[in-house]
């Protein structure tokens, strides 16, 4: 995880970054089965590849969370949005009130059976690509309420979860770490950059009924 205060780049690092960028562009061109020599490829293909990287990069640095708190963890979510953590410096710009403007849904709290259809509907209203963070024990596994008759044991039975933040409740710093992991994932630096569907989820209960 990068430090909060990054040192100014040295000349060597800048050279390395440039080399890495060239390599990445070459790799993406290979992926699209194109000649390494950009001069002889179709211009549209090349722009497409570069544009995809551009879009990815901008996605990574501008993830807008949905203002959506369920239970205790929402307190820490508020702290995350307040001045101590200052989430804006990594692009978590604003907590938006409507799902249509959001990229990340942070499920903060236990999920009851009566909330499931509503959360599903919110998720469906979000524009693609969309990501889900399970924040806290309750959203991960049911937490202390796992025996209750009215609780879904983990939001991953309903939605495809990208990152889990563990704790009861996790500190706001922990959420920040989780969201930086999500950034890595969105930017394609770690596995699973494409959006998963619910059918790929191994923990999904097949006979789940409401």
């Amino acid at each position, binding site marked *: 995880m990068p430090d909060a205060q990054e040192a100014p780049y040295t000349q060597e690092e800048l050279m390395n970054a440039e080399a890495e960028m060239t390599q990445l562009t070459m790799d993406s061109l290979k992926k699209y089965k194109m000649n390494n020599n950009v001069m002889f490829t179709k211009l549209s293909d090349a722009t497409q590849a570069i544009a995809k990287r551009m879009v990815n990069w901008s996605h990574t640095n501008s993830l807008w969370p949905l*203002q*959506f*708190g*369920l*239970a*205790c963890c*929402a*307190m*820490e979510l*508020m*702290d995350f949005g*307040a*001045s*101590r953590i200052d989430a804006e410096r990594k692009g978590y710009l604003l*907590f938006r*009130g409507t799902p249509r403007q959001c990229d990340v849904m942070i499920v903060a*709290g*236990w999920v*009851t059976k*009566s*909330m499931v259809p*509503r959360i599903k509907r*919110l998720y469906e209203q979000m524009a693609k690509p969309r990501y889900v963070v399970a924040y806290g024990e309750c959203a991960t596994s049911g937490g*202390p*309420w796992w*025996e*209750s*008759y*009215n*609780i879904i044991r983990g939001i991953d039975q309903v939605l495809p979860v990208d990152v889990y933040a563990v704790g*009861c*409740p996790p*500190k706001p710093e922990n959420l920040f770490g989780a969201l930086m992991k999500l950034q890595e994932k969105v930017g394609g630096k770690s596995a699973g950059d494409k959006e998963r569907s619910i059918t790929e989820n191994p923990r999904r209960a097949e006979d789940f009924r409401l």
Partner: protein
Amino acid sequence: MAIMRINVGPIHPSTHGVLRLVVDVDGDTIKDVEPHIGFLHRGVEKLMETRMYMQNPSYTEKLDYAAPMAWDDLYVASVEKALGVEVKEAAQYARVILLEYQRIASHLLWLGTFANDLGQMFTLFMWTFRERAAVLKYLEDMTGSRMFYVNLRLGGLSRELPPDFKDRGYKLADYLEPKIAEYTDMLDANDIFKERTKGVGKLNKADALAYGATGPVLRASGVEYDVRKNFPYYIYDKVKFTVPVESGGDAFSRYRIRFREMQESIKIIRQALDMMPGGSVAGQPIKLIGQQAKPDPVFMERELPRGNGIIYMVPDKQRPFRIALRSPAYINLSLLPMLCKGEKFADLFAILGSIDVVMAEIDK
């Protein structure tokens, strides 16, 4: 004009949780409000029957997540009554200091979100969270956890307090007092805030008593009732403090009550820190099979930040046989339809915010 039915929630930035309101409006005037609750119901009372006595504090803490230690204290006190355990003297002082800081943290959280509801006064939200972070840091260093402390044990606290407990307690009180006073400049002299709250959601004395309202909502309607004063527990009879009472009964009065309660809490903390004796504060370690409870039912009440919380418990030997929780926020929420009738739709959230609901406590 025809009556229109508007749905608010259950996921709405201003409902302070997952509360659904079905509002009937005639033009811009509210005719009726119907709160739908239960979106966080998980059966706490039933789950608590399946656990041993000292396993349950982690459930009671999650009832009111804005002030977790308050409910924890209420539960542990009722268990202490059932088992016949005396609380150590120094531990009583320590509990009062921590609980009053918890009350301040809860009121700060309420104030920030309330001002935010009233028209995006986000500055105050940032200010109150700055102060709340200082309080939570103190509580974290003293108890070991930032939000859910689970630091109360039978007869005391979970461990001895750090040596800088008193010094930092004084320092924090000195830090908070002028900061809280700053909010008056921001709110009492603010025309928008006054317009939005004065005369909004009027509750008269008779209705407040008839509905069973407690806490700041009751005191804002001119009734002087505070469990800390009327039925003192721990050391509240030894410290000097006044119970703030306002006569307006509107949202502004409820704000003033909570604001003055924070100042009173700081007074209580200073006195308790002065008077606190030395000695051990550690309670009994958790034993799953400990001493047996007396079979008599236990009634215990405490002044929580939201009002009068009550636990009625029928004890079994090692676990509660039946436990019933009286949530003050639940009773206060039942006032909402009456308070909103005839008000403008835009004032709905001013009224709801001034009641200060916590949905987990209401849904149980």
